[in-house]
């Protein structure tokens, strides 16, 4: 079964660092782009960036450039999003998704709650 499994919910304080993960299984993980998508409470989907695990090629949305870091570990079949210092406005659900013709496989989402 093709799957993406994300790390569990996180509760942090403003200024904390955080790294969340997305582990792929059931397919050739290295050769599909993985997109990260943010969904703030009650809002739509926002593309943050994408990473190609085979060579860690990264494409970032200008809106998220400098705000988060994306990375990939091909050995662990895992991609990551990392924040050096969280803001309250980073509270959202974060999804990873495999890009085929479409975003065809989605992780279950990671809820991040940041308090002041």
């Amino acid at each position: 079964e093709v799957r993406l499994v994300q790390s569990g919910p996180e509760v942090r304080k403003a200024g904390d660092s955080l790294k969340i993960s997305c582990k792929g299984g059931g397919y050739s993980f290295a050769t599909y782009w993985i997109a990260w998508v943010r969904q703030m409470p009650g809002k739509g989907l926002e593309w943050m960036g994408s990473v190609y695990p085979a060579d860690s090629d990264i494409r970032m949305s200008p809106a998220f450039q400098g705000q988060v870091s994306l990375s990939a570990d091909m050995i662990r079949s895992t991609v990551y999003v990392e924040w050096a210092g969280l803001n309250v406005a980073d509270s959202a659900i974060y999804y990873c998704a495999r890009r085929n013709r479409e975003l065809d496989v989605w992780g279950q989402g990671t809820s991040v709650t940041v308090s002041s």
Partner: protein
Amino acid sequence: NFTLSQPPSVSGSPGETATISCTGTGGDIVNNFVLWYQQRPGSAPSNVIYGDNRRPSGVPARFSGSIDSSSNSASLTISGLRAEDEADYHCQSSDGSQTLIFGGGTKLTVL
């Protein structure tokens, strides 16, 4: 830069047809494929239309997509509305590379 906009909400009664629009600004919508995702409450999105008008395996034929170049818009049409179709629907396109562009999402209510 290219953006997509959707109406915040659409509604219809069971058995009726609902149409959700997705209008492009800052570029021609025909230049790249439009995709549609359904997102039920508390769940991750799932693809219902790719390549402007193609359905993934398992998506009912009640779901169809189209492009209107004259209005620079795409549409998702759901015929024979059912209660289970009540969800948020998101359109998505790209700039031809890895950049993904989403519309703001539309809440479909089945009355």
